[in-house]
Structure formats: structure tokens, C-alpha cells
């Protein structure tokens, strides 16, 4: 029989406001095994913990039940408390009477009743608890960063500077990401390339950083400290070790049909190409979809002109397997598809463009060499309309419910830069709200309005139609309370951003969770914002939520700090709540191994002694260092041979029985 102490926390008024904590303590005082039941204002405080430690010693407790907040919050705290008083930390059970009682009930009687039931369930479970001992596992001192944009580059640089090896896996042929496509960056208006490309060079030159460009993560197994990752290095059809990056091949390629992704499809590129001049690595890629040689077998001009014989039409994808201690997702974003927003005529009119297209039109390395010309006739636009929140803050279901966060600032930037360079151009901005919190951000926006005379109109645009070579923009001015029409030469849509679609597949591989908008979820929105709930997986940049460059870089460094903290450890303490198989009950059917997401179960042939009968049986064996205690095997096992330490079937059933009593 256990000697159990029950400690009911008020959590100030958080619990005590809706749950009669004294009644809870009294109600369970006479449950079997309970020798002390008491309540206190803040159990997690030093004084509260002291109360627990003293009670353990005074009453010789063999286990404690703490009725308090979610175990996610303070289970670790109370385990440490118990351990300090000489109790095994796994002889602690938490009854969550805050999130599951006080926070969701209004009626104090109902809340109290439920709290009593949960306390009884925890006591019933505790009766079956056994002391558990945590094992240890080693840490592979290398990190993987998935995504080579500014977020991934910054994270990798910080980890590498701390002395750990980092691999960056980037699916496109070059690192740099979206930031490389930007012209200037707010609020200081430095040129994006000027601040990004040195970082790209740093990353590629860093002895601790290894780049896998034009590569994708294909499979992830293992667990924190010991991930095994399969990386597919897609065939570039150019031998990177021979190529000198002279670019002759890209100039001579006769195919000019492929849309240039780097310029958002505003012009064409060859079938063999380097995405942009500062690309890293400076090695071309053959786009097999457009390459004449790959399609028809004739041509091969690039191979003929290549002075270093680097072209290899036969090259195949290569799979590399690497081990890592930590993984950082930095997969970034893309613009949403505008098919749902026909009213703006994006598909019909060449002169209705996205803000990212405008970045390319204003960039010196872009298709117009930095002169602002509208795509339809290469004329200077004299009247430009910006439409904000295209697909953002949209609850109609056509777009995204969230704010894309970056559009207010970049639209102010675009408007200001156009007014600065082409003072004869009128610029109107339709907005719902202008949101510019951030250091020097609101000042920046006000400069656009006050110094550069950008015409901000509060209201949305209903329709954009072509009329006599112009774009007739019909919208409403909510402040003047009138409908307005503007004949514009160019319309720029501040298009909502969404996580890169690759993140869904990646989340599955990493067993990291994603929210309804496909952003990766953090372990705690406030207190653990750069960690995924999956141990050893960290989040950097827009894959976690919309953010601008300064914020991305800050988060990237934060994620790096967390990774460094992990890699600095030689050993990790394992979770002792792992599965184990009863060899006498195991049928050897392999169903548990089929469902195990961690590959923690293997089968061995072992001689067992079944009540005097010796025979060799095929039985399941759990690798305790790999098992994460998810319990999938325990519910799959038809014979009940699999059980989870700390959450045994009998413990769960005891809880259910206590609740149903």
C-alpha cells in the first residue's frame, strides 16, 4: 500500500476562484492510501515546494499527487521537488484542476466536483506507480538546417560560430531564399543583396558549414540528439567539382523558354542556368524540362563549350545519409495563389502584379535593370495603385485569416521609393489598417505619407478592370464615405504569404505539428517560441509565422542558441516512460514495429521459459533510447504484450475506474 500525500494548489485565484480547493483536499483525505491532504496558495513557489518536501519526510510518503496546473507546466518542477526529498520522481502524479477545471467551468460546484474526480483518478493511478529510472543517450554534435534563406543562413552561421558542424539543405540551386529577390529592405532601405550576399559567402566559406543545395530531405528517423536523415541531392547534370562557374554554358544555351523563377517569371532564362549572379554555389543547373538535349537527344551545346568538361547529362540523384543531434526547420514562405481573387484581374492583366514582382521590376539586377517599366508595354507608369491585405486577414475563406505582417511596411517602402525616384508618379495605397509596430517602423510609414505625399486611402478595392489601356480601380474611401475610381497604369497587390508547401511533408517526417494555416507550431507560444513540441526540432523564420527580415534574423539566432544549448551536452537524459514487451505474451506478429513512428522496435529470436516450457520465440524488443513513449504499440498489440512504463494499461484502467465510480 502506498502512503500518498495530496497537495491542492490554489494557483492564486486561478484555481481557487472556480474550484473549492479546501473541499477537494477534504474529499480525498479518506481515499485509500492517502495519509495527508492539504491545500496551499502557490504549490510551485519555494514555500509550497517546502511543504511537499516536509510532508514527504514527516509522513514517509511513497508518492504524491499534486492537484494543480497542466503537467506540461509544472510536472518537471514537482518531480524535482519529490526527488529533493528522496522520492523517485516518477512517483509524482499531477491532477490538472486548472486547465481542465477552473479555466473551463463557470459553476464552482461543477468545477469542484470534477477536480475531486480528477484527484481520485490520480490517486488510483499512483497506487500502481513504480519507481522508474531514466537512461542516457549520446548527442551527435552536428545540426541540420532545412532551408537556406536568411533564416537558415543566420541559424547555421551562429551554430557554426559556436564550433559545431552544420549542414544546410536547400531545395533550390542556390542559398539566399526570398531575401535575395528583394530590392531594398525596410526601415533603413539598404539594398538586400548588399547585406545578404556577404552572409551567403560567409556560410559557404565557413569550415563548419556544409551546403547541400538543390537537395531535399527525404526521410527522418531517430530522436533528439540522434536523428538520421536521408538527403536527396538532385542531379544538377553539372559536375560541381569541375565547374569553374565561368557561365559560358548559360550564355550559349539555345533554349530560352523557361520562366526565370528568380525574376518571378517576368522574363526567361536558359535551360542551363545560374539563378542569379551572386548565387552560391556558383554552379549551373540543367532544367531537364526545357533542355533540348534531355528531351530530344540533340544539342549538347553546353557540353561542347564547357572548358572544364563539367556537363554530365547522365548524372543521377544521389542519396546521402547523415546523422544530426538537432534539426532546424527554416523552410520559409511563398505568396498565395491569387486564383480566388479574380476581382483584381491578376491573371488577365499583365500590369496587375504582386509586390514581389515589383521588387524585381525595381531591382538593378531585375528584368528591367531597375527602371520601373510596366510589364505590358514597357512604359513608365504614372499612376500606381497599391492594394493591401490581398488574401490577408480574410475570413471569407478565399484567403488567409491571419495578417501577413510584412505588407504594410514593404508597401510603404515601395510607395516611398517610387515617389523618390519618379516624383511625377502618383501613388495611392488602399488599406484596411496600417500596422507598423517595430523599431523605426511607424516613423518610416509616416515619412511615406508626410514627406513623400503617398495617398493612403482607407478602404478596400472591389474591382480592377482594363479600360482603354488603363486599369480602372474601383474602391471605397471609408473616411470620405464615397466610392472612388482611379485610372491606374500599374496595380500592385500586397499578396498574403503562406508557409512553403514543402513544410507539410517535412512536418510529417519530423513528427512536428503544424497549425490550421500550415505554420509549424512552437512548443509554447510565449515561453518556448523557437522550439517545436518535438524534442530536438527547432523553428526559424516564417515557417513558424509571418515575420520580416529583422525579426527572422532575431528568431534565427534564438533557434541557434537553443541548438547550441543542446549540442553542448554530452548526454541527454532519456524519458523512462517507454514501452516494454512482455516476452511471454508476445506473438511476434510485428504489428507494433509497423506502427512505431521512431523505428524503436526490433524482433529477435530468443529462448523463453514459459512456465517451464523452453522454446525459441520471435519476440519484440524495444530500444529504450529510441522509444519516445507515444504508446502507439501498446494499443496495437493484440495480445497486450506491449505496455508503457508510467502509463501502464492497468494504470489507465484504474484512472478510468476511479472516474466512473
Amino acid at each position: 500500500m502506498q502512503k500518498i500525500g495530496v497537495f491542492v494548489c490554489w494557483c492564486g485565484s486561478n484555481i481557487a476562484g472556480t474550484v473549492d480547493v479546501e473541499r477537494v483536499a477534504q474529499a480525498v483525505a479518506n481515499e485509500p492510501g492517502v495519509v495527508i491532504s492539504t491545500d496551499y496558495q502557490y504549490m510551485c513557489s519555494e514555500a509550497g515546494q517546502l511543504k511537499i518536501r516536509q510532508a514527504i519526510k514527516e509522513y514517509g510518503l511513497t508518492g504524491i499527487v499534486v492537484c494543480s496546473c497542466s503537467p506540461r507546466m509544472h510536472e518537471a518542477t514537482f518531480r524535482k521537488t519529490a526527488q529533493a526529498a528522496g522520492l523517485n520522481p516518477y512517483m509524482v502524479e499531477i491532477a490538472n484542476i486548472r486547465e481542465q477545471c477552473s479555466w473551463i467551468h463557470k459553476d464552482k460546484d461543477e468545477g469542484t466536483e470534477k477536480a475531486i474526480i480528477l484527484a481520485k483518478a490520480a490517486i488510483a493511478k499512483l497506487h500502481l506507480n513504480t519507481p522508474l529510472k531514466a537512461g542516457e543517450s549520446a548527442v551527435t554534435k552536428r545540426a541540420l538546417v532545412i532551408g537556406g534563406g536568411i533564416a537558415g543562413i543566420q541559424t547555421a552561421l551562429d551554430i557554426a560560430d559556436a564550433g559545431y558542424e552544420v549542414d544546410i539543405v536547400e531545395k533550390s540551386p542556390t542559398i539566399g531564399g526570398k531575401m535575395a529577390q528583394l530590392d531594398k529592405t525596410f526601415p533603413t532601405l539598404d539594398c538586400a543583396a548588399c547585406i545578404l550576399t556577404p552572409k551567403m559567402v560567409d556560410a559557404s566559406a565557413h569550415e563548419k558549414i556544409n551546403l547541400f543545395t538543390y537537395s531535399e530531405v527525404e526521410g527522418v528517423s531517430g530522436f533528439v540528439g540522434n536523428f538520421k536523415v536521408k538527403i536527396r541531392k538532385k542531379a544538377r547534370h553539372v559536375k560541381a567539382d569541375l565547374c569553374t562557374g565561368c557561365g559560358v554554358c548559360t550564355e550559349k544555351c539555345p533554349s530560352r523558354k523557361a520562366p526565370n523563377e528568380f525574376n518571378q517569371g517576368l522574363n526567361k532564362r536558359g535551360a542551363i542556368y545560374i539563378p542569379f549572379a551572386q548565387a552560391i554555389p556558383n554552379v549551373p543547373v540543367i532544367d531537364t524540362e526545357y533542355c533540348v538535349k534531355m528531351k530530344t537527344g540533340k544539342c549538347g551545346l553546353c557540353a561542347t563549350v564547357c572548358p572544364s568538361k563539367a556537363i554530365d547529362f547522365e548524372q543521377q540523384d544521389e542519396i546521402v545519409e547523415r546523422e544530426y543531434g538537432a534539426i532546424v526547420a527554416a523552410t520559409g514562405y511563398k505568396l498565395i495563389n491569387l486564383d480566388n481573387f479574380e476581382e483584381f484581374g491578376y491573371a488577365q492583366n499583365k500590369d496587375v502584379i504582386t509586390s514581389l514582382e515589383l521588387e524585381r521590376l525595381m531591382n538593378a539586377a531585375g528584368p528591367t535593370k531597375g527602371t520601373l517599366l510596366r510589364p505590358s508595354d514597357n512604359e513608365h507608369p504614372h499612376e500606381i495603385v497599391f492594394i493591401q491585405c490581398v488574401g490577408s486577414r480574410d475570413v471569407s475563406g478565399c484567403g488567409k485569416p491571419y495578417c501577413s505582417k510584412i505588407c504594410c511596411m514593404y508597401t510603404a517602402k515601395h510607395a516611398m521609393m517610387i515617389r523618390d525616384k519618379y516624383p511625377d508618379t502618383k501613388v495611392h495605397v488602399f488599406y484596411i489598417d496600417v500596422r507598423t509596430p517595430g523599431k523605426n517602423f511607424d516613423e518610416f510609414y509616416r515619412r511615406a505619407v508626410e514627406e513623400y505625399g503617398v495617398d493612403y486611402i482607407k478602404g478596400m478595392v472591389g474591382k480592377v478592370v482594363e479600360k482603354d489601356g488603363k486599369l480602372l480601380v474601383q474602391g471605397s474611401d471609408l473616411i470620405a464615405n464615397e466610392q472612388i475610381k482611379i485610372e491606374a497604369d500599374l496595380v500592385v497587390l500586397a499578396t498574403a504569404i503562406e508557409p512553403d508547401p514543402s513544410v507539410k511533408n517535412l512536418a510529417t517526417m519530423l513528427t512536428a505539428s503544424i497549425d490550421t494555416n500550415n505554420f509549424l507550431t512552437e512548443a509554447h507560444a510565449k515561453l518556448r517560441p523557437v522550439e517545436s513540441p518535438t524534442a530536438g526540432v527547432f523553428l526559424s523564420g516564417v515557417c513558424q509565422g509571418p515575420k520580416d527580415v529583422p525579426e527572422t534574423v532575431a528568431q534565427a539566432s534564438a533557434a541557434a542558441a537553443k541548438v547550441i544549448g543542446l549540442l553542448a551536452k554530452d548526454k541527454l537524459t532519456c524519458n523512462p516512460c517507454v514501452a516494454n514487451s512482455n516476452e511471454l505474451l508476445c506473438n511476434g506478429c510485428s504489428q507494433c514495429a509497423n506502427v512505431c513512428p521512431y523505428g524503436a522496435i526490433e524482433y529477435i529470436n530468443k529462448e523463453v521459459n514459459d512456465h517451464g516450457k523452453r522454446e525459441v520465440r520471435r519476440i519484440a524488443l524495444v530500444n529504450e533510447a529510441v522509444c519516445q513513449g507515444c504508446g502507439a504499440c501498446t494499443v496495437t498489440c493484440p495480445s497486450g504484450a506491449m505496455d508503457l512504463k508510467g502509463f501502464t494499461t492497468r494504470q489507465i484502467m484504474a484512472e478510468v475506474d476511479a472516474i466512473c465510480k
Partner: protein
Amino acid sequence: MQRISEEILSKCRALLEDGTADRVMGWENGEFYYDVTPAVFTKDNLDNMIYDDFCASNQSKYFILESKKEGKIVALLKPCDTYSFNQLLKENRINRDNVYVLGIPCDGKIDVQKAALLGIKGITGVKSVGDEVVFETIYGEKSCAKKDVLFEKCMSCKGKKHMIYDALSNEEQEPETAIANEDFGNRFAYIENLEHMTPDERFDFWRGELSRCIRCNACRNVCPACSCLTCVFDNPKSGVDSKANTDDFEENLFHIIRAFHVAGRCTDCGECTRVCPQNIPLHLLNRKFIKDINELYGEYQAGADIELGMPLTSYTKQDAEPSIVYERGGNK
């Protein structure tokens, strides 16, 4: 009347004589003509082996233990038995090296209870003639339409193709594909009736059917999917063994739990219903699971292969989310 075809008998004899196998698992006469019993034969008593329209049992499960013994055993498997055999192979329960599978033909097996209801009693012989079945009885020869006396499981026959074999007793009869007949397609018709009931009606239906259960465990013991070394209902640590049931509802749950345990692995062999002495249509529980699995994860026939993953134990991104329960509603 000859109770086994010369083809099967001579093939078995040859296998034993040339040393390919040491034993044969088949059927022998029981107390009554229709009362056949599974049995293991050697060279010495092979002549006692029989196989006719009364040999309905699915013998696959026997090979879990038989294949662990020394030497090789010949398994006489009807087409539908091969599904169960495959499923057990997939679950690593049978040592394939110790079993020689001889595929034997089947034209549907006869339920003596159904015959009795038609007034056919005192049976001393049986013979299928086309769609008719002719019984020799102590009261003289009687005949009826075969479909009127088939077992429930034969009413939804999976077809005549063997899914696994080392040899066939009659190679010419083997169809190229596992074309199931029309009845196989219609096997869910009754499930749909159950689905259309209100929850209360359905509850009453099952309470009524299961109230007859005497917990003889025949369904469990015959079921090829219920082959755990120690069943949870026999395991003192499971918390449910030898437990005095607080009411008869708890008793009913035995069948619900069993249906969950075999879900995704049940080949719909129908043995549970065949052996039930209380005539409880237990196969309906399993069929409901099969229907749901087909609808939620795509058509799946357990035991049709050895390689493919099973729907409930392999994850794909297209898998139904748990919210499907709400979307489908309580009556589905």
C-alpha cells in the same frame, strides 16, 4: 460413396512417399456423416482422409503450431482458407518452410442445420450435381438447391482462386483472377440495414443477439486472427480475465473487444458464425469493420497478399482524421 477425390489423395500420397512432406492435415470421419473432424495423417492412415462438401472448417490456424514441429506438413487449403494462411504468414505466425500448401477446390460447403430445416435428416452421403445437391439419407435420396443449404460464409464466397500454394490438386480449375462472385459484393447489404437503424434499435438488436452467448469461446478458438499465445481474456494481468461480470452487458463486450482485436486482420472467413452453437451472426461485427476500413482507407482484403501494409497499422497522409467520426455521424 467415395468421400475424397482421387486427385487429392494421390497427390498427398506422392508427397509423403517422395519425402517432400511428413504429415498431411485434412479431415476424418466424425461420429455422424456430416460431423467431420480436422485431423493429421501420415503414410499409415492416409486412407482415412476425407474431403467433401461437409469439410467446411478453415484449418489455417492449426499451422501455427504444426509448422513449429519437426518435418513438413501438407496443408489442404480451400481458396478462402488461403487468405487466412497468408494473413498469418504476414504476421510471422507460420513457419512457411515447414508447410507445403496444396490448394484444393471448393464449390461451397453445406450447413447441416439448414438441410435439417428443409427436412433433410439422417444423412449418409452427399453429392453436388450442378446447382443441386443430392443427399443419401436413411429415409432415401433427397435433393435441394445447393444455395439453400450453403453456410453463411459460402453465401459471400471470395472466389475460387488460391492466393498462395505450392501446388494445386486441380490446376485446370484454377481461375486466373480472384473474381469474387456477385454475393461477395453484396455482403455488406445486411450491414447497411444495421447502419440504417437508430442507435437504440441497433443496440437492441445486438443486445438481443448477444444475449444468447454462453461464452463457450468457440468463436475465439476457431478464429485464425484470434491466435494470441495468451488471449487477453485468459491473461491474469489484463484485468479482464475470469472477472465476474457485473452484468450481462459486460459479457456482451467480449464480442465487441474481440471484433476490435481482429479489425484490419479479419479476412471475413466467417468461421465465427459457422461454429457458434447459439447461431449468433458474429461475422456482422467483423464485416462492419471491413466495410468501414474499405470506405475510409480504400478497398482492402486481408490476406490477399503477404507484402502490403495493413490499413490500420500503416500510416499514409490520406488517412482519415479522427474527426471523421463526427463527419460520418452516429449512424454510419
